[in-house]
């Protein structure tokens, strides 16, 4: 029987409740966004008692569907002031689904200061005192919980940044090896969890792939077919397993859209030194791994295990992070990037936001561009809670205000990721308009702009970008609701059997008779719900714009500006 776990942190009561019919065939982002829209006042303080943190597995999570273990974390974002769904890999989504839990809803706010841990097992749920975990980094918290509750548990936790309510704090969970590196990083949801006095959620489930399925035979056939569709696709079946997400570094650089020196240039002369090919070489030479699955049952295995010179391991170093701490800061050493990545994972910060913030601090002259040791020292201030550490943890837009920087790459207060909107204009449209604030995953137009997946739209021209971004935003909102990894899109966009097979899996699992059109409607509805929340929170079309410098400064080597017209941007959601 599907259920919600509702945790009232004001009274520290935990309840298991039946799921109302309207939520039964929602999962992942569709569920977190609907619950937030239904239960959270749009104008509330994100760190106050009326915000909620909703954690939900996707519709297919916990089954044998390949690469379906993604976790959605939602709430009102302290970083953007709007609705947020942040999506993570790791092992807890499958465990929650196997315990019949459709969502964990954290609400209220304690009057006193004590910290707690929520333990979820097949026997029930309880809040336990966790003051002994306060101030500890996520790696140590995860290790302690695995020791205390068993080495198979999934641990959702926040670091000191979340405890200190920093706006760029993320919520993490671990992979199968116990690395607390699978982040729902974006939007500051770690601060929301911190505001409720919850340090960790430990999920203990003996099962991984046995979530209830109405028609097991039909499901098995569809899941097998979907596996084959992924494996037959050259990107999902070969490229991602060989070099991981950081395979993008070189192609984005060669295409001239790799943001370098805080979005000043589109190419970095040391890109090949920090890309996936080099990473695979170093990882293998040091006894790490060039390929690694973030959750059981993933066939793409795009992660890696990067041993660092200090003996610790950063698993994984992803493309976005390698970019944020590499080209963005003019740092050309993987070991420095891995160290910055590790510190963020441990202290509990989003790596993209933190990279953007350090870029802003370098723009301000607080630390020099290219100075890796200075960046590491600055980032180490976060755990100490010093004024500089708090500024870094507050995100790029806040740091820009503190230091009077106008070249701040952020939309709706959230830092722009690893594709410059002036030479990958489809992504520019997504950054400007997604309800999430600048987010590459919300409508990943790099596919058609650069990778020639799902057609081709010239990245340097404004024509066609709005339609491209719109279609991708709708498809992504639906995909983020299934628990499937976004990377299945590479196969789905180029294989006409992809989407019908996903629908077949959902129908076999839930006994529904959805069609491909219903999936489109689901995606549109998710976006509509999120947009409405943001409008009620005070957002207008003026918030659906890029920062001024992208319209005024040319980006070498193509010397282009962002020139998709405002009235075009306002048509992205014209299906509503």
């Amino acid at each position: 029987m599907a259920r919600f776990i509702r945790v009232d942190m004001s009274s520290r009561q935990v309840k298991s409740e039946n799921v109302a019919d309207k939520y039964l065939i929602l999962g992942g982002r569709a569920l977190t966004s609907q619950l937030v829209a239904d239960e959270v006042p749009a104008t509330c303080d994100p760190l106050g008692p009326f915000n909620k943190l909703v954690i939900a597995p996707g519709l297919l999570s916990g089954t044998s569907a390949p690469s379906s273990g993604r976790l959605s974390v939602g709430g009102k974002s302290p970083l953007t002031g709007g609705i947020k769904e942040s999506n993570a890999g790791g092992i807890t989504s499958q465990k929650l689904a196997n315990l019949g839990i459709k969502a964990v809803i954290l609400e209220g706010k304690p009057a006193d200061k004590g910290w707690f841990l929520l333990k979820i097992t097949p026997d029930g749920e309880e809040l336990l005192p966790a003051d002994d975990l306060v101030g500890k980094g996520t790696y140590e918290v995860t290790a302690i919980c695995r020791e205390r509750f068993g080495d198979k548990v999934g641990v959702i936790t926040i670091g000191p940044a979340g405890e200190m309510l920093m706006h760029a704090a993320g919520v993490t969970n671990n992979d199968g090896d116990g690395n607390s590196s699978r982040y729902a990083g974006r939007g500051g949801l770690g601060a929301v969890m911190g505001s409720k006095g919850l340090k960790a959620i430990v999920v203990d489930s003996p099962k991984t792939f046995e979530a209830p399925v109405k028609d097991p035979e039909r499901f098995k056939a569809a899941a097998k077919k979907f596996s084959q569709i992924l494996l037959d696709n050259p990107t999902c079946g070969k490229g991602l397993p060989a070099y991981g997400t950081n395979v993008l570094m070189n192609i984005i650089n060669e295409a001239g859209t790799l943001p370098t020196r805080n979005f000043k240039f589109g190419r970095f002369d040391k890109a090949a030194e920090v890309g996936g090919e080099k990473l695979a070489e170093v990882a293998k030479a040091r006894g790490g791994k060039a390929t690694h699955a973030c959750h059981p049952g993933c066939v793409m295995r795009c992660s890696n295990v990067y041993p660092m010179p200090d003996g610790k391991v950063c698993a994984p170093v992803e493309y976005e992070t390698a970019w944020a701490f590499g080209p963005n800061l003019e740092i050309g050493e993987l070991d420095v990037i891995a160290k910055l990545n590790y510190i963020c994972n441990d202290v509990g910060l989003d790596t993209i936001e933190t990279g953007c913030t350090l870029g802003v601090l370098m723009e301000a002259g607080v630390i020099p561009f290219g100075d890796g040791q200075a960046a590491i020292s600055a980032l180490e201030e976060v755990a100490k809670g010093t004024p500089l550490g708090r500024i870094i943890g507050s995100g790029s837009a806040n740091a820009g205000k503190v230091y009077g920087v106008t070249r701040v790459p952020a939309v709706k207060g959230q830092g722009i990721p690893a594709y410059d909107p002036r030479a990958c204009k489809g992504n520019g449209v997504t950054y400007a308009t997604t309800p999430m604030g600048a987010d590459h995953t919300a409508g990943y137009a790099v596919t058609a702009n650069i990778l020639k997946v799902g057609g081709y739209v010239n990245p340097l021209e404004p024509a066609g970008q709005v339609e491209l971004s719109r279609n991708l935003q709708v498809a992504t909102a639906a995909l983020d609701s299934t628990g499937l990894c976004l990377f299945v899109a590479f196969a789905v966009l180029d294989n006409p059997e992809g989407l019908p097979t996903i629908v077949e899996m959902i129908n076999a699992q839930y006994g529904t008779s959805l069609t491909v059109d219903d999936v489109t409607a689901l995606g549109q509805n998710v976006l509509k719900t999120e947009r409405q929340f943001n409008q009620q929170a005070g957002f207008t079309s003026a918030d659906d714009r890029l920062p001024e410098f992208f319209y005024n400064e040319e980006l070498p080597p193509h010397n282009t500006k962002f020139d998709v017209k405002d009235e075009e941007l306002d048509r992205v959601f014209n299906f509503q």
Partner: protein
Amino acid sequence: MIVLRVEVRVFSGLEKFLPQKRFGEPLPVELPEEGTIKDLLHKLGIPENQVFTILVDGRHQPLDYTLRGGERVSLFPPVGSG
């Protein structure tokens, strides 16, 4: 004979066809006038079916694209992620 010279970079596994080169390492290549990408691949011994993305000065081009000289040519197998 008039020749043109381009600067080639290969990535993501295509370097296996150029035993002396690492990924991303610039390789100057000379071709006859009006040489195409196809001619370039033939000269380098890279099978056409292994190349998915061809960027010439950062712009996508097809196999029959005619080179002028001085271009930066970047070759990739199918790659993707996010």
